[in-house]
């Protein structure tokens, strides 16, 4: 029977991380629990909805006896979070009751048998490679927001990872905009392969990555599953099956109007325009002339807003309407100081990218100017 003690801080952090794996929607009650297992010298915590998310954390513990039990995620989080003591001991009995003792407090939590708890199947013959936390964070933060929330098109709720020996190309689209990020990396394969990973898993990974860390993330991939090991946490997920739409043909190959602007300047201006634009489907109009970009928002109910920012214009003078939120999403994900908007006809897609970089491409569809 499980019988361990560990520090409150480590346990609380692990419980909080792992409890994101509980969907609360599972039809098997035991899947709404966190699985706790004491191994030789560690405590392992797992929660999974068996589909999009499996979260596993391993922490140091002094193990008195090995065993496993499952307990409701919410309850465990509240109990572990509420106790003040620095050491916590956990003890399960034959009836899947878990005793939690910390300082002078003691809780008896009604759990369920660990035997019924299901986990994602082990991954066999997986492709494995490493990226730094910083690189993976940079990739994910630039594309995840462009995935679709529309569950009726499951494929678009994930991002496509095209993996080749020389690196990664990651694409996400909700059909209104498309984000594409490339990164060179050494990947031990001969043939390119691809995988569609759900937004839920990606956001979970993003949450535990440290943006500036040079520590490695170990990625494992099979035909049906992916997992990422970040420190003591493993995020796993089933891949989304199906054919990602052919996005290459929508990447604009030419533009006759280029606008180069300061990223922060444009971001601030768009935020101000949104005050009016949000009453009108977030629609803003961009017009360029004489070294300036004029941004306007109009709403029948609210009124009018307008602002000019300096810009470098090349080619014809642009006039185009966008959803300001879609623009802001990408502007916030770009780190470079200057960005370029490549435009053509008012109803043709526009492209936003950092100046002097081909790593990131954001295709955004206009709204109609009328």
């Amino acid at each position, binding site marked *: 029977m499980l019988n361990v003690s560990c520090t409150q801080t480590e346990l609380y952090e692990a419980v909080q991380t792992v409890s994101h794996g509980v969907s609360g929607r599972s039809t098997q009650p035991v899947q709404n629990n966190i699985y706790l297992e004491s191994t030789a010298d560690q405590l392992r915590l797992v929660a999974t909805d068996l589909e999009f998310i499996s979260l596993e954390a391993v922490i140091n513990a002094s193990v008195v006896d090995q065993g496993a039990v499952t307990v409701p995620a919410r309850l465990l989080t509240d109990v572990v979070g509420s106790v003040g003591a620095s050491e916590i001991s956990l003890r399960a009995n034959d009836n899947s009751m878990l005793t939690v003792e910390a300082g002078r407090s003691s809780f008896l939590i009604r759990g369920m048998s660990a035997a019924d708890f299901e986990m994602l199947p082990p991954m066999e013959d997986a492709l494995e490679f490493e990226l730094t936390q910083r690189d993976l964070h940079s990739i994910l933060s630039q594309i995840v927001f462009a995935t679709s929330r529309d*569950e*009726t098109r*499951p494929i678009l709720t994930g991002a496509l990872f095209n993996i080749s020996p020389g690196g990664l190309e990651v694409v996400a689209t909700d*059909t209104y905009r498309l984000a594409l990020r490339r990164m060179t990396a050494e990947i031990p394969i001969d043939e390119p392969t691809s995988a569609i990973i759900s937004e839920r898993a990606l956001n979970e990974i993003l949450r535990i990555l440290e943006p500036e860390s040079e520590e490695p993330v170990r990625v494992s991939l099979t035909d049906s599953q992916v997992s990422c090991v970040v420190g003591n946490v493993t995020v796993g997920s089933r891949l989304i099956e*199906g054919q990602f739409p052919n996005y290459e043909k929508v990447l604009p190959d030419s533009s006759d109007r280029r606008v180069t602007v300061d990223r922060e300047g444009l971001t601030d201006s768009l935020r101000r325009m949104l005050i009016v634009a949000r009453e009108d489907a977030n*629609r803003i109009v961009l017009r360029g002339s004489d070294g300036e970009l004029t941004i306007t928002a109009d709403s029948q109910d609210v009124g009018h807003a307008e602002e000019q920012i300096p810009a470098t214009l090349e080619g014809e003078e642009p006039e185009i309407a966008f*959803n300001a939120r879609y623009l802001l999403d990408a502007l916030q994900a770009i780190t470079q100081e200057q960005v370029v908007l490549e435009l053509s006809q008012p109803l043709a*897609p526009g492209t936003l990218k950092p100046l002097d970089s081909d790593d990131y491409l954001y*295709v955004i569809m206009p709204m*109609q100017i009328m």
Partner: protein
Amino acid sequence: MGSIQILSEQMANRIAAGEVVERPASVVKELVENSLDAGASRVEVTLEAGGRRLIRVVDDGCGMDAEDAALSVQRFATSKIAHPDDLARIETMGFRGEALPSIASVSQMRITTRPHDAVEGTMLTIEGGEITEARTTGCPPGTTIEVANLFFNTPARRKFLRTTATERGHCTDWIGWLALARPDVAMKVAHDGTVLLACPGRGDLRNTVAEIYGSNVARQMLPVEMDTGAVRITGLVSRPELTRSSRKHQVFIVNGRYVRSMALGHALAEAYGILLPSGKHPLCVLHVEAPPELVDPNVHPTKIEVRFSNQAEMHNLTQQAVEEALERAGIRPQRPTRPKMAPDAAGRWEGPDAATQMRARRLRVNPFADAVDDRDVGVEVHGEEPVVDAVFRDAGSRAEGLEFVTEDRLEALGQLAATYIVCRAGEDLLVVDQHRAAERVIADRLAGQRGQVRRQMLVLPITLELTDAERAVVEQYREQLDQLGFQIEPFGGADFIVRSVPASLTGGAVEDALRAIVEDLAESGTSEGPEASEKLLATVACHAAIKAGQALTDREVHELIEALNASPTPAVCPHGDPIIVTIPRGDLDRKFRR
């Protein structure tokens, strides 16, 4: 086929009587079924003016001699059953001897027919049921039946017919179902000179599905294959990502007959379980072959329903067959411990007690929850008017007398049962139906933008593969859909391409909403005038709105109620149903005897 005998009085009474002919589609169905019963290997249907002016069905089946041809238009004349016991094991589509006489009595009919071994054929002209001319004629073997000017002598019923496009759509729906039932028979339909459907009859179900629903759909279907010896369940079911918001594209064929079946539909849904988003239904074409004595097709006047004498077992077998199909495709985790069910010597099924199994499952999905929403019930070809229409027509009258009294703004307190939003206004308690409130908000937004549409262009245009009936409504409503923000263009063949959607709908499942809108319009039929655009607005709002049963975040709850506060008509949804139920403070006081 044997020669025709008049059914005895006794037997005639045992056969459910009823109206057979409601509209052109019912004629098409009966005639094509007769052709199939006659062993035809090809059937060609020609329609004019939605079948109102002409329906011609040509087959290469066994044909009739002069005597049988004359008998065929007499009531209760059938070659298909001769003895009361035959009723217990019907293997043909027809068995009542009622279709031809019924059709003949309300149309101008001509039958041209020749058995394969006869040298000459027979031609009968029938006018309102009376044979006005009978003569021999030269003709190819097989039977041609022409039905002209349906309801020419019953103006009241003629008035009930809908637009050409709608009637045409119902006809092609039926031919599609019959083609799916008999992929081995070549079927072709032409309307006013255009070929709408041409199934080659090579016996390949996937081919037939491609012809009717488009090749994209066909590609995403998984094979079902189960054989217990007594019962065989075969066909195709969609991958879980291919769904529709109505059950119209669930085709069940029981012993060769297209039927509606609550039990089979439920079994299908159970097999997918949580793989399906709520409110979504998979597509299927499932052939169920069971010993005829277990299947009673004679429970509905138009033979559209069947009853299984072992309903629970059929349910479980169907569910199992579909589950296995999903498992084989790796979509559902394999369940190794599944009890295999097979009939014992007495034809009964072993395995876990069916009733217990169903009870256990019901705890998780209310099997008939969807049936409550009558907008979702497919329009029966033979039924009365489409339900949807009745809803719209009554809307005006129901909305009268409904007034939203309170002067105060609604203040949201929280969501109840994922369906209602509980609010306070002044001292009163108000309960808001979240779906209807969302419909109102969207309809306002769309209507407000009529002069000034906000379109969001799409990176990946949506391709719509439509059935014939759906194509007809898209053509009819194209301009109005465009004014709402849906820019839809023909894209060769049956396909349309959607280049933009209303900007105010981009937060939700737009593609799906659009499909549901098209299906809905196709089922309710086309209409004209200003009514049509109101109806369109209501339909769009309905499908784009959040549904009942959808959990909302606090923020979503507040946004919805704020938007409702801003509406000029917050009390009535676009269909005319009330949005808010008010429980006045006074009522509460009384209840607490204060």
